[in-house]
């Protein structure tokens, strides 16, 4: 047991015992769902089903039902893809990078942030798949021997790198998440009273018994997975940015893209975590575990990554002039002052100005302000991708083919539908899964719990007496 400096704010408020942690996390799962859950689930399901309907219509008719034209061949589809992948970056960052940095505050939020990641990457993966038009031929992106002779996928193409990056990211995040879930499922299993719940959770918990050797392995596996997932987080969005950066379109052909995309992804991911967490902690009564300090830490991450993004925007602008390439310069002048100035302006306000407000302690510890900013940031990050993609394409080298992009109702339906589906998944998760890594939270209870922190040391006789030098 490690004793922390008393000046450090506790991470778990109130007088919680180990049993209280179990109770607080398991009660919402065992009790009947509140009426609000059904209402939200119903709304999310209807929106999600509408999205599925739009996707089916798209598959039946063809990609032509999107508002694309021959100048703007990529628009909402890839914007939504990058937006969702970006959102999907916070979970693994919280669970992997913060684990390597031994940040204890991650314990309260890593489970639901990772769930969010996985569902967001599901939604992201949908877009390239439906963009193929013929979904059932999706397996052609894999290097499989086929009847057309020596036809292989192109390993030099960033689009194929994406296939590998996204699928590795999704599957590794899923495994990481599930390995952490197993001991918590065992806790629910051992408490379950209803036979069906008992059966379900005993299957899900894989017969976990909490043996010392298993915990030893568990800790190492978590650490190594964190070590593997950390470069993965950075590589995935770098590779997504290569989709643009390796092309020769002015506005896309930029070496700054990989770090700038990664920072943007973490930025939007944390914003989404804030949006969900602020509602969840209230609805599920987890205020003692996810409190202002956690929100503040996340706001600081938003502030830092937001500043990186802002710096990148300004660097990009400067370089477009400094490079002396007039096409490059025009792409940026057109972004800021052309017909899409409003998209550029919303991107700049939402992503550059709003995170700077987090410098004020009053603002970054205000829950309502955080909630508003988290939504503003997500809107801004959607516009960022829209600006990068559409404004770079819509005025190409040949003025006669200049064009504007107007989304069709299918474009909108598919996008809104993925938001609905995302919430369907997240609400199901919140209903049936432990939303807090409850057994991991117990490990920090003695060092970071409020009641233990300020109590005089009652334990005696352990050999590793780090606490002696405090008295």
């Amino acid at each position, binding site marked *: 047991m490690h004793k922390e400096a008393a000046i450090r704010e506790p991470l778990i408020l109130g007088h919680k015992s180990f049993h209280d942690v179990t109770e607080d996390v398991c009660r919402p799962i065992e009790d009947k769902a509140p009426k609000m859950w059904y209402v939200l689930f119903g709304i999310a399901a209807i929106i999600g089903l509408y999205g599925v309907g739009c996707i089916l219509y798209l598959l039946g008719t063809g990609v032509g039902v999107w508002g694309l034209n021959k100048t703007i061949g990529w628009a909402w589809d890839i914007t939504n893809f990058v937006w969702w992948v970006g959102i999907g970056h916070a979970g693994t960052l919280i669970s992997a990078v913060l684990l390597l940095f031994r940040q204890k505050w991650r314990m309260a939020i890593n489970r639901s942030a990772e769930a969010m990641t996985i569902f967001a990457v599901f939604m992201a993966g949908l877009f390239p798949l439906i963009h193929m038009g013929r979904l059932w031929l999706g397996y052609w992106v894999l290097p499989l021997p086929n009847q057309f002779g020596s036809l292989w996928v192109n390993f030099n193409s960033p689009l194929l790198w994406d296939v*590998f990056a996204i699928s590795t990211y999704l599957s*590794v995040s899923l495994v*990481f998440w599930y390995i952490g879930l197993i001991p918590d499922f065992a806790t629910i299993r*051992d408490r379950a009273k209803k036979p069906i719940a008992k059966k379900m959770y005993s299957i899900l918990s894989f017969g976990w018994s909490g043996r010392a050797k298993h915990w*030893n392995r568990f800790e190492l596996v978590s650490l190594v997975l964190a070590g593997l997932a950390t*470069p993965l987080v950075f590589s995935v969005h770098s590779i997504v940015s290569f989709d643009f950066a390796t092309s020769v379109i002015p506005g896309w052909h930029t070496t700054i893209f990989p770090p700038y995309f990664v920072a943007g992804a973490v930025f939007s991911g944390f914003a989404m975590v804030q949006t969900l967490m602020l509602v969840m902690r209230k609805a599920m009564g987890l205020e003692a575990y996810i409190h202002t300090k956690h929100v503040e830490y996340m706001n600081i991450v938003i502030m830092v990554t937001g500043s990186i993004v802002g710096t990148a925007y300004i660097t990009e602008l400067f370089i477009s002039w400094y490079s002396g390439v007039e096409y490059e310069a025009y792409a940026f002048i057109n972004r800021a002052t052309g017909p899409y100035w409003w998209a550029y302006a919303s991107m700049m306000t939402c992503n550059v100005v709003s995170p700077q407000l987090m410098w004020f302690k009053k603002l970054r510890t205000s829950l309502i302000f955080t909630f508003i900013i988290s939504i503003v940031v997500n809107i801004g990050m959607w516009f960022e991708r829209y600006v990068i993609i559409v404004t770079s394409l819509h005025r190409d080298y040949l003025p006669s083919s200049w064009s504007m992009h107007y989304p069709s109702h299918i474009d909108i339906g598919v996008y809104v539908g993925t938001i609905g589906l995302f919430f369907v998944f997240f609400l199901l998760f919140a209903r049936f899964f432990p939303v807090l890594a409850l057994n991991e939270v117990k490990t920090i209870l003695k060092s970071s719990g409020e009641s233990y922190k300020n109590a005089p040391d009652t334990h005696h006789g352990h050999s590793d007496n780090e606490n002696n030098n405090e008295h």
Partner: protein
Amino acid sequence: MAERIFYAMYDDDDVLKDGAKHLVSKGVKVSEVFSPFPIHGIDPIIGIKNTRLGIMAFIYGLTGLLLATIGMRYFMVVDWPMNIGGKPNFTYMDNILAFIPITFEFTVLCAAHGMAITYMLRNRTLPGIPAQNPDPRTTDDRFVMEIRLSENTKFSADDLQGMLKETGIVELDQKELK
């Protein structure tokens, strides 16, 4: 000889750790500890060696690296040297930069999944396997130490019981196996 198993239950991880240290110093063999969360520092006390899964992850990673390299060399250089802008892939080294992203991803894929599967198999935690913790409270807030009589032949059952009682247990359970 009939086997007798003692399950000593604690309500605090540090008390269990101190108890285990005390018992082990007297020569008692603690065969297992069940706990709701990892008790740091218990492994060396009860003689559990550190896991070697990390080495396995490294080997799986190397396998992935090798497979990706062999695969891409075959697809892009041997079987069908793709000609991009008049620059065909004559050797793997010519284009190695373009192969790095997938090599990296595939290495991580193999290392992570290989390790996760090995972890499940070694733990024997798989879907459908029944739980083996002696008391359902050990996944909540109780910590159980398991001591087997057959592994502690120099002590009698009463000796063990007496020693356990000194360590601050909250409950003591016994199981007879024929």
